[in-house]
């Protein structure tokens, strides 16, 4: 539509307004007292002054001195701007004791605003104007809170003069109706609610002529730097590649994960109390830092000195990384603020600190801050933010003892890698087990491994896998010893059988030779007897013929 817009000076808000407040138009910010309206005004003016635009703040309740202080407290060089004429305050507070008799006209307000904007011969429409708590401007509203014709005329004139104006007003039904419908081209409503005893502030754009804008309720937070919204990050898809993989710095952990962890990936470490989650995270932090990465460790549970002490006790020496600024412990308390503010804080921290990896110990600390759906949604957006910034996010999930090792957060779809730590009870001991439940895009180990926390850090070992069952710990040792004995017996028997095998053919050969000899002997014996008999028979026959011949022939 060709509406030009001006930046709001509030991080995250320009994106929701597709550029900023409407230029040359009044924008109305409505909300209950204390929800931060004035800060939106001051940031809008500061943004202008920082760009060299003349910025004028008109105040209907707060003293000019106080506003000046606020501006300074937000970190702006307000004294310098005032000296340079870039920032000035028009005091629209009523003087006490004024009485009214007869008709009046409030055009003088516009005259004063114009004069402030035009000081030094400037073009009023080139500047920025904010009017704080217009609803408190004397004579501007009737007793019911309806804007008088005078007020509407003022706003009309501001628009006719093409002055970019931001107006705040308390959220009364009457003021809302009269101002919203006629006076403002854009309306932003601020709301604050108490959820789970924590303050949650939200912003909603209810009207914005000619400009597409977000229509949701957007959470915002207020800190020393003023209000800010969840940054909308450009989601220029994160591409998985081997180059995008980083080593955990642990020789057994990398293969378990199929090579390492992806930049911009998400890792969840789930486990019950005492299963070694924090130690594993310390090992990871140390390993990632050792690979030259910058790691931010957000801890909800222990402070830095406690963690350092615990890590040193298991041989994880993080001191060099802390000194080198690669590792940064951040202590947070879940009850400091609501879910949404935690998210905004984290997103801002990521944008300012630019870590390569963010470790959150533990995300379950935030489950008390909202219903499961809200917590899941918050973590989803956190993972998205990390992904878009190429930040590896490592989350710890503490499982309750009654949960039977089942995650109740329903986060599986968010995760690239999911490691489960278990305490396995057998006989008289607990054994720590580690298992990769899921690892997108990596050839992770399917096997349950045993891991031990030693004074040299974490040691990951293969489990005993004989006899069709997994056995760990002391029982694993016993089984292995029994197996060794068993093996020795078998080996000995094998040797004996092999010897027998070698000897057996010889035995039979010898018997065969003997038999052959006996056969030959038997044959020889038979042959010689037959010969003897034949000779004997021939000799007998010859004798008989000779005898017959001697007797004179046959008779």
């Amino acid at each position, binding site marked *: 539509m060709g509406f030009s817009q001006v930046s709001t000076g509030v991080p995250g808000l320009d994106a929701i307004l597709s550029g900023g407040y409407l230029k040359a138009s009044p924008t109305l910010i409505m909300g209950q007292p204390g929800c931060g309206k004035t800060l939106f005004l001051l940031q809008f003016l500061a943004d202008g002054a920082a760009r060299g635009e003349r910025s004028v703040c008109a105040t209907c309740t707060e003293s000019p001195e106080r506003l000046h202080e606020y501006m300074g407290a937000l970190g702006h060089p307000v004294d310098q701007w005032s000296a340079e004429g870039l920032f000035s305050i028009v005091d629209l507070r*009523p003087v006490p004791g*004024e*009485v009214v*008799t*007869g*008709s*009046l006209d409030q055009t003088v*307000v516009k005259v004063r605003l114009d*004069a402030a904007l035009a000081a030094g011969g400037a073009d009023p429409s080139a500047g920025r104007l904010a009017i704080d708590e217009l609803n408190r401007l004397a004579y501007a509203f009737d007793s019911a809170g309806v804007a008088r014709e005078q007020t509407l005329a003022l706003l009309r004139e501001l628009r006719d003069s093409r002055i970019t104006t931001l107006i705040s007003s308390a959220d009364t039904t009457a003021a809302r109706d009269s101002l919203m419908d006629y006076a403002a081209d854009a309306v932003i409503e601020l709301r604050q609610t108490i959820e789970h005893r924590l303050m949650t502030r939200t912003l909603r754009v209810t009207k914005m002529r000619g400009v597409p804008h977000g229509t949701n309720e957007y959470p915002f937070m207020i800190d020393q730097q003023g209000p800010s919204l969840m940054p909308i990050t450009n989601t220029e898809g994160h591409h998985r590649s081997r180059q995008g993989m980083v080593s955990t710095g642990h020789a057994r952990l990398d293969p378990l994960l199929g090579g390492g962890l992806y930049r911009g990936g998400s890792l969840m470490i789930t486990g019950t109390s005492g299963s070694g989650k924090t130690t594993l995270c310390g090992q990871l932090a140390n390993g990632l830092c050792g690979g030259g990465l910058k790691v931010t460790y957000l801890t909800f549970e222990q402070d830095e000195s406690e963690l350092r002490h615990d890590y040193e006790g298991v041989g994880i020496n993080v001191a060099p990384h802390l000194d080198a600024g690669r590792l940064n412990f951040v202590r947070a308390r879940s009850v400091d603020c609501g879910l949404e503010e935690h998210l905004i804080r984290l997103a801002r921290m990521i944008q300012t600190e630019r870590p390569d990896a963010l470790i959150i110990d533990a995300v379950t600390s935030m489950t008390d801050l909202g219903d499961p759906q809200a917590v899941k949604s918050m973590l989803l957006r956190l993972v998205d933010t990390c992904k878009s910034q190429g930040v590896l996010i490592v989350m710890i999930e503490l499982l309750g003892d009654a949960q039977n090792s089942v995650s109740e957060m329903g986060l599986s779809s968010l995760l690239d890698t999911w490691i489960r730590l278990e305490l396995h009870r057998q006989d008289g001991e607990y054994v720590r087990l580690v298992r990769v439940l899921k690892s997108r895009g990596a050839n992770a180990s399917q096997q349950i491994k045993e891991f031990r926390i030693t004074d040299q850090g974490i040691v990951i070992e293969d489990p005993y896998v004989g006899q069709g069952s997994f056995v760990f710990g002391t029982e694993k040792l016993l089984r292995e010893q029994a197996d060794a004995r068993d093996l020795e017996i078998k080996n000995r028997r094998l040797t004996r059988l092999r010897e027998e095998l070698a000897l057996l053919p010889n035995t039979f050969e010898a018997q065969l030779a003997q038999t052959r000899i006996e056969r030959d002997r038997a044959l020889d014996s038979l042959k010689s007897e037959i010969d003897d008999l034949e000779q004997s028979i021939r000799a007998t026959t010859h004798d008989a013929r000779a005898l017959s011949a001697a007797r004179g022939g046959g008779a």
Partner: protein
Amino acid sequence: MATAQPPAGSPALRLFVLGHSETMRRAITNARALGRVEVVDVRDDPAAAEAARILATPTLLREDDRPARIVGDLRDLEAVRAHLGPPYDNPPGGDDPPAHHDR
């Protein structure tokens, strides 16, 4: 210095107006009935309006040790006199007793 009806050394009044509308003219006429008055058009002197924190016109200011501000066209001159207090609550004719308008 002292010219008109109020007693000598009477405090100066300033009337802030904007333009020449019927309301402004009526206010000027009414204010002048009180005594010496300086008329300031805020369009000509916005800085004076800023310094005096004028939120509406006409506004009549009494700026001495008994300051008062009255917004409007001053149509109820008796109420105006009462609010301004001495010496303005004693009209120039001298007909009315000073205590005429005590609340």
